[in-house]
């Protein structure tokens, strides 16, 4: 068999690597953490350093035990809302929900889709984040934030540009604690929360939402799913 010169072989391999499409990219749990160098204040950096191990464990938990969700790379960290004048840091997670085209979901008005998504995934994620006491009880953490993105129905059809709807919510620690303990109603919770919706890139703003109990995210199991060895999913 004719042998190729190493340089030729290297060139061919490089070309193949550049030309061949596909290649599934896996965002490892540590990729979900906001890089330390992106924090612009000492407070943010200190929080990220102090709680890195715990956040990494949290990211690993989502990655291994909730495989229908994924955290956007670099979007798990301590951040203030865009319009905040002060450096109030919220423990925030930006989740992509793998929601495919579904006739029932598509038939819902936009604010109902938001209500459904937040009730199903947002509340459960906030509950899980609130279950990190050493992080939440840090005096420099003002509250929690969950951002959810999902595919806008009808936009993944051939010839259409796929668009994500994104809902971002911020809530102070006290209200969340009371809401999860059922001492604050869902209505009061939404009244106190800061939230906004985006349709693709377009800000829609605050939409009327309803929050109800939905145990899907805490009970759903992917058929025959096996977490990696050594990982226990409760």
């Amino acid at each position, binding site marked *: 068999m004719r042998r190729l010169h190493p340089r030729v072989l290297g060139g061919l391999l490089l070309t193949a690597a550049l030309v061949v499409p596909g290649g599934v990219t896996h965002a490892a749990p540590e990729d979900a953490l906001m890089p330390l160098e992106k924090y612009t204040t000492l407070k*943010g950096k200190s929080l990220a350093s102090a709680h890195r191990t715990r956040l990494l464990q949290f990211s690993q938990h989502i990655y291994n035990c909730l495989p229908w969700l994924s955290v956007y790379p670099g979007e798990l960290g301590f951040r203030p809302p*865009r319009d905040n004048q002060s450096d109030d840091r919220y423990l925030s997670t930006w989740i992509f929900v793998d929601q495919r*085209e579904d006739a029932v979901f598509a038939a819902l008005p936009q604010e*109902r889709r938001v209500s459904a998504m937040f009730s199903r995934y947002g509340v459960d994620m906030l509950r899980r984040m609130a279950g990190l006491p050493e992080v939440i009880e840090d005096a420099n953490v003002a509250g929690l934030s969950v951002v959810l993105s999902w595919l806008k129905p009808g936009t993944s059809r051939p010839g259409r540009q796929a668009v*994500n709807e994104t809902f971002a919510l911020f809530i102070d620690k006290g209200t969340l604690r009371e809401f999860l303990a059922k001492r604050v109603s869902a209505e009061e919770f939404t009244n106190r929360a800061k939230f906004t919706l985006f349709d693709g890139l377009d800000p829609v703003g605050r939409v009327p939402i309803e929050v109800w109990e939905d145990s899907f995210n805490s009970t759903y199991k*992917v058929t025959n799913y096996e977490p990696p060895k050594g990982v226990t999913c409760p």
Partner: protein
Amino acid sequence: MRAWLSLALFFGGVVMLTSACATSEEWSDWKGHNTHFASGTHGFFSLRNNRDGSNPRVTRTDVESARQENWWGKAITVSPEQIFQN
């Protein structure tokens, strides 16, 4: 003429009521069915398992692969800067 108008209004009302009922039915269907949401993922894994048969285990890598295989290109998404400060 008046009879035709009444008939048209009647049928118009029926259509509106029917569509309203369908919406509320769909809504209760949505709230009631816990497995509804991840239907796409659900379907994919069923297919995969049927095809493989001998090895029905699903790993996190399979989930990622499913996501990629079914992907429709990069979806337009708001940038983090529109939501957060750093």
